[in-house]
């Protein structure tokens, strides 16, 4: 579903992402972990079409994000780390707006919104303005907006930050179920226990380069750690 080849992104002279390669197939959850400023958000924004790569390719469902952006973007659902939204817009209006951007017809999106709102128990606040929402509730609406048009690839930047424990669990389950149903998930996170639980593959980034990627077992081997070692242990060894 997603093929990232030699992806390079520079900001002026500074190299934020340096020749990164990875693929995500259907039914996979790929987590990118790494220290601050390692290039995680830059990668996910480039895949989402918000930044343009200096070199390399991003192919989504066979479409190149640089040359066929509209077709590629129609397959993506993007959840940003900072859910900044229009303060005077209600949650319900926001979901309709996003549905219209993705070309969903009115009936289909109205039905889908009614199905999605109960996931995070948002029915009662859907008519309230974003300026009155907590950060967590804004995040929940941005998760629902990403799922609304039934994408094939979900790009999730720091999914748990701002969510209460119950909602964090719901979000985790949601992403896992999305992958089980044939979708692909790219997760960028600092919350290593989450990545450990739901990922089928994990990539470790540092200074814009992908140090290694693979299953948890493969990473343990790479880090030369024992079987019971956690992702936190692996991360500490690989990024030190």
């Amino acid at each position, binding site marked *: 579903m997603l093929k990232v080849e030699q992806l390079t992104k520079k900001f002026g002279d500074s190299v934020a992402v340096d020749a990164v390669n990875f693929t995500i197939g259907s039914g996979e959850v790929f987590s990118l972990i790494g220290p601050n400023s390692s290039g995680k958000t830059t990668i996910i*924004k480039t895949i*989402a*079409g*918000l*930044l*343009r790569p200096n070199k390399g390719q991003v192919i989504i469902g066979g479409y190149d994000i640089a040359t066929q*952006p*509209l*077709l590629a*973007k*129609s397959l*993506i659902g*993007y959840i*940003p780390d*900072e859910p*900044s*939204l*229009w*303060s*005077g*817009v*209600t949650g*319900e*209006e926001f979901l*309709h*707006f*996003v549905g*219209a*951007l*993705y*070309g969903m*017809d*009115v009936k289909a999106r*109205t039905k889908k919104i009614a199905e999605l709102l109960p996931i995070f128990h948002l029915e009662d606040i859907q*008519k*309230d*303005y974003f*300026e*009155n929402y907590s950060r967590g509730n804004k995040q929940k609406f941005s998760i629902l*907006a990403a799922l609304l048009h039934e994408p094939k690839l979900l*790009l999730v930047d720091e999914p748990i930050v701002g969510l209460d424990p119950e909602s964090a669990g719901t979000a985790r389950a949601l992403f896992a179920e999305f992958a089980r149903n044939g979708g692909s998930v790219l997760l960028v996170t600092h919350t290593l226990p989450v990545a450990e639980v739901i990922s089928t593959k994990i990539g470790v980034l540092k200074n814009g380069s992908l140090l290694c990627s693979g299953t948890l077992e493969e990473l343990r081997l790479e880090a030369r750690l024992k079987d019971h070692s956690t992702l936190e242990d692996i991360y500490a060894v690989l990024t030190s």
Partner: protein
Amino acid sequence: MFLLLARLHKERFFRYFEKNSIAKIVIVLLFLVVLSFLALGVYASLKMGFRHIALDPFFREMLIFYVVELFLLVSFILVLASALITGIFSLFRGNGEIFLMASPEYDAKPAFVFVRMFFASLWPLLVIILPALLAIHHTFGLGSVGFFLSLVSVMVLVAFAVLSAIVLLLGIASVLHFLGRKRSSPLLTQRNLTWITVGAFLGMLAFVWERFRSVNLVEFFQARLLTKDVPDITPILEQFDMFPSHLPALTIFFSLRSELIEAFFYLFVLILHFLIGWIIFAVLRRAYLFMWQVSQEGVSGEKNASSPFIRLETAALARAETPLRAIFFKEYVTFMRNPRGMLWFGFILVIWGIQSASSFVLTHGLRGEPVSVSAFPPFVSMLAFAGILYFVAMFVLRFAFPSFSIERKRAWVIGSAPVDLSTVFMSKLFFFAQLFSLLAIIFSFFNASVRVLAPIELLIFFATVILAVFAITTYGLSLGAIFPNNETDDPEMLSTTLPGLAFIGGALLYSSVGAFGLQYLFKMDIAWPYAIFVLFSCLVIWALIRTSKRSLATREF
């Protein structure tokens, strides 16, 4: 505390120049050049006008007094309106000084807001007041002491206007808090405060309008009175004596007559008014922290998304079938639900209203006189056209020009969706061009009462206004799209950037060219300047849309 805050602002000022220093120094220099030209223009045009007034021994004194009274009254209203808008947000909703509210020096904030608003209101006025006083000085021989007294009196008037705004806001907040103290939901909310303030301000405007509406200028200036050498100034005193701006006007009037004791007396009375205002302010300030706290709670307590009007807006978004329509209605919804933006919108409308009302007073005040409208329709049409485009340019600068930059943080929503960014541009263009065209047409009809144009001329006038509004909106929106600002999303700051200045310069030039084209057509039946203007407008619209689309195609978020 004040020294600390002043230092913080000084450091913020210098930090502004740390990045892109050369570009920012150029912006500041250009800004100063623009202001200097404005000041020079004010000086030259007023001096020319004052010379004409000075040539007439009958009207000389009364006319200059009337001009000063009118100018100071309009200035007072504008400063008051601007201070009310800024005050609502700075006093009760600004997050910038949250550290101050958490400190034991919290009650310094209202005084700090007063100082900031005073300087913000003073400098644009000084750019006009100083050259105006100099023009009076050079034409009528205003002495240096008189000049000084006049300048001080205008500065005190500005301070009084700002203080009145703050006292009014604190007063309304206190009453709302007092009336709502036993209710389950507080009465002191941002919405209530805004509506009551707007109501109070409109009431004040109605009071002013009532005093001017029915004035017969011929009788007022005693133009047919042949028995006296100079007209009696009593009508002016009666018309303006209720307004605070009357006191500095009297200071200027007596300074002109070299009666400095009287001039100083009226300045003293004005200062006394200010001091009484400050005492009221000091009393109201005691409850400020409490009012501030309650108004923070009120923000999250305001749920008005269920009103019928809001439901219609929601339905429009919910039924949008294409991205273009969805973005169009999103623009509409975010525009209508931005209280600060709406207040500024109302503020520009008020200024436009004052201009139109003065046209109305002029027409009706001179009704039946042979010197009236039939003598100058082409000239008045030209002025009306330039005036309408000037106000449209103000709206474009405040709303359309910053619309790409202010959405920087929320760009991920549309940027990650399968939407061509040229659709975003066109949606915004349709929204703003329709809105501003509607306003321009309404005000054109209002101004039409001044002109006596043939139906075909009126048709040409309206068509040209719509074309020019579309061109100016495209110009402002394009500049904002091609040169987005990554440092601020504050529309007021964005309006003073280099592209903002370039917009206003270009828009004024364009309006002037259009106005001359119309004048040539109406006055001398020469069509080619007008034809070139129309052709140029169409070309500009086409080229700017094309360039903006190309620029947006490579945009990163």
